[in-house]
């Protein structure tokens, strides 16, 4: 004697259906005016924090599954509903696991991890000129009691800091950035992209034909791990044409190399006569790394 329903629930669910529904749970494909109803909710130069309403995304998924669903007044559900009746619960679990892996699998060579979407998914929306000016802006999110801010206050140790999984991080337009995190967001860190950090000086003085810079001094010997510390400001004669503000990069590179040679840093690497390599010159010229972190301290108020 076989129970048709339990026999059916053993059969497989097509994986591309699961993949498509998982995208829905990440709000992929939802038109922007459904997410942000009016411009007043997200005017220019604003950041907003939110959590994702699980019932709303469940309604979205249920609506998608409703194609071919026919209502009947009979007491016995029609065979068309069998697929959903037998598979909805296990499908929801599969969709949760797939949802948590969508971004992970966008990196070439990655393997899916055994994680599933958390009960509370939180995130932020950023609308600002900063999004279009620094396109590769880096984002990290942390939960309470696992964030660098807690470490700063002395609550946890550095090895207890754990970043939240990013479920989705995407530019919705050139000035709008959306981020969804797998867990409650306590600290959000926005970081200037490392590939676009600009080159510059601490101070320039064309009148006296000098610029000053604080140099990044590499570790003393090759046996030490690569590390750099910023040293006191060093001034250089670096202009080849001060009226036109043109720098002599070759000369600057030589002067920096000589400074390191005199300090005895990385012996042999900075021969006194030659200039530094372009990569070392680039590293020294990098000026200023911007980073802003937001603490989301709602303190559990309920509305």
């Amino acid at each position, binding site marked *: 004697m076989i129970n048709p329903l339990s026999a059916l629930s053993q059969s497989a669910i097509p994986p591309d259906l699961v993949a498509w529904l998982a995208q829905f749970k990440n709000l992929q494909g939802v038109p922007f005016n459904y997410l942000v109803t009016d411009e007043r909710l997200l005017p220019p130069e604003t950041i907003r924090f939110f959590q994702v309403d699980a019932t*709303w995304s469940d309604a*979205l998924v249920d*609506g998608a599954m*409703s194609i071919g669903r026919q209502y009947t007044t009979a007491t016995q559900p029609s065979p068309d509903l069998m697929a959903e009746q037998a598979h909805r619960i296990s499908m929801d679990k599969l969709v949760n696991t797939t949802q948590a892996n969508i971004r992970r699998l966008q990196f070439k060579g990655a393997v899916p991890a055994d994680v599933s979407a958390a009960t509370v998914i939180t995130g932020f929306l950023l609308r600002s000129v900063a999004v279009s000016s620094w396109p590769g802006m880096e984002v990290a999110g942390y939960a309470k009691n696992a964030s660098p801010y807690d470490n700063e206050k002395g609550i946890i140790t550095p090895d207890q800091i754990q970043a939240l999984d990013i479920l989705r991080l995407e530019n919705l337009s050139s000035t709008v950035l959306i981020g969804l995190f797998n867990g409650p967001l306590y600290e959000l860190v926005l970081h200037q992209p490392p*590939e676009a950090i600009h080159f510059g000086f601490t101070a320039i003085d064309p009148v006296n034909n000098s610029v000053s810079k604080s140099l990044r001094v590499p570790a003393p010997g090759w046996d030490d791990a690569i590390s750099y510390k910023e040293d006191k400001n060093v001034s250089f004669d670096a202009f080849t044409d001060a009226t036109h503000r043109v720098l002599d990069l070759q000369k600057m590179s030589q002067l920096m190399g000589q400074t390191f040679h005199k300090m005895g840093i990385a012996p042999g690497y900075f021969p006194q006569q030659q*200039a530094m390599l372009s990569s070392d010159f680039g590293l020294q010229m990098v000026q200023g790394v911007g980073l802003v972190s937001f603490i989301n301290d709602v303190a559990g108020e309920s509305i």
Partner: protein
Amino acid sequence: MANNSDQQLLKKQASFIQHSLPGLEAGTYQVEVQQILKHSDGTDITGEGLPSLTRKFSVAGARYTLDRNAIHSVFPPAGAVGEFSNSLAHVVLNAEKLPWLRSPYIPKNRPEPKVLTYETTINGKSVTVDYDQDIPSWLSVMLLSPSDLDGANLLNVVKQGTVQNLVPATMQIKNGNSALLAGTMPANGYSIFSYLLDDNNTAPVDPGAGFTPATVVKYIDVPFTLFNAIAPSMADLSMMAHVRAVEMANKPIAHGQTVNPVEQYSLVIGNRLPESQPTVVPGAPTAVPPLGSNLALLISLESMELALRNHSGTTFYDTNIANQPDGFVRLPVLHQWSFTSLQNTGFAFETMLKSLNGRKADANNTVTVPNPQLRVPDPPVYNQPTQEQTVVQKMLASGYYPMNHLARIPDAEGKPIQTLSWYRGPLVPDGAYTPAIAFLADDNVPAIYAADQLLRFDPEVGMYDVAYALAWELGRLLALQNKDFSVALFQWKKKVAQQYRMLLDADVLDNMFADLLQVYNEDTSIQSDPLVLQKMALSHLQKIASAL
């Protein structure tokens, strides 16, 4: 100055790499193959080898124009207004080998790539380490301001023309296989092809693989006095490009895009600081045009070795261009953007983010960000709210937004009813109330068949909450719009329905004919004789019919 705790905020590695040289540089190549057949004892039987075969192929690469997609970002950002007086403009390129695809050296002077060594001690042992010598890049970032060009309008400075405009008038350019066209650059101009005039080489110029004399080029004419002052030297060009490798784990990724975990970008920097508007002193005369507007150009300096600053010897450039009053240098422009530099620190990354939501950028860290949640900002606050006003306040605080709603139901005169309803998207303020809706009834049967089932009505204010009904309907519409999904879903439901029917049939057969099937399965003689089985089945059915 970063303190220790800041280091924990985002630990990411960025690698600075000297260069990324292409396997084959852009240009035309010729391969010649010749076969020699030898006897087993080594004697050559072909007599000097079979006739050789020569084939030509070209490696294409950007030369006069650059695809928009090749540019990842620029600094200062295009159209930015801020304090950039002490930073160098740069361009980040997606193509990591582009700055070394061509060379500013003229072809016959290209040096062999050198490997240098130095001695050092690692772990107490003396070690010789090899490293490459820097290779200069053919790209450079040039900054111009109106004051450099006698107040010229920066918008008109870059002209559009063809490759023919880059060829000196005394030379010819190949057009296709056989035709030759005369160049159209005046005699007092110097371009990327003018190095041939140093040797009085009058052979026709090749526009390059994949290019014709009619290829569109944007170029700029720089007066020779300005060029002598602001052009980089060959040694500068070896410092002006390098490669950065960055981790992609925390960056925005578009839907459907795949990236490497570590991506490499190349950077080209400029050698000139921007012109900056000084602090305004009241009463002092302001310059006309006002200082501070800059035009940044990514230019090609291919084969310009003989005209760059500190070039050796006296070349055609010195004798024919730099001593004419109107001599100029014509450079192809691959990308351009403009920005303004003022004494205004508003355009720094940190300042922009700290001043979001109307917060003062220089405020103390304890000053909170106004209106951080996604809901109507600055909602109305009533002194002694009535019941309805309380409801409105709570709904707005939960992220709801009132919207016009045209109902499907007509009123008494037949016009559709216009009402006001609450809507909320999936993004709600932290801690907002979200109802639990059961989408599955008993036994996991789906419960919702129409969006109207999810409408929620608040009798206190007489308004509908259409959030979940809209979500359900949107899901349905999006699924219908995507044919791959809707067809696949429908086929799957049909297939499972069929499976169910088959299983049900088998179940019914099992129940009603259990003993008959048992006899059939056990007695092999019945299995071979269908007539006997038929008689048995008939008698069994009669038994069941009489029992009903």
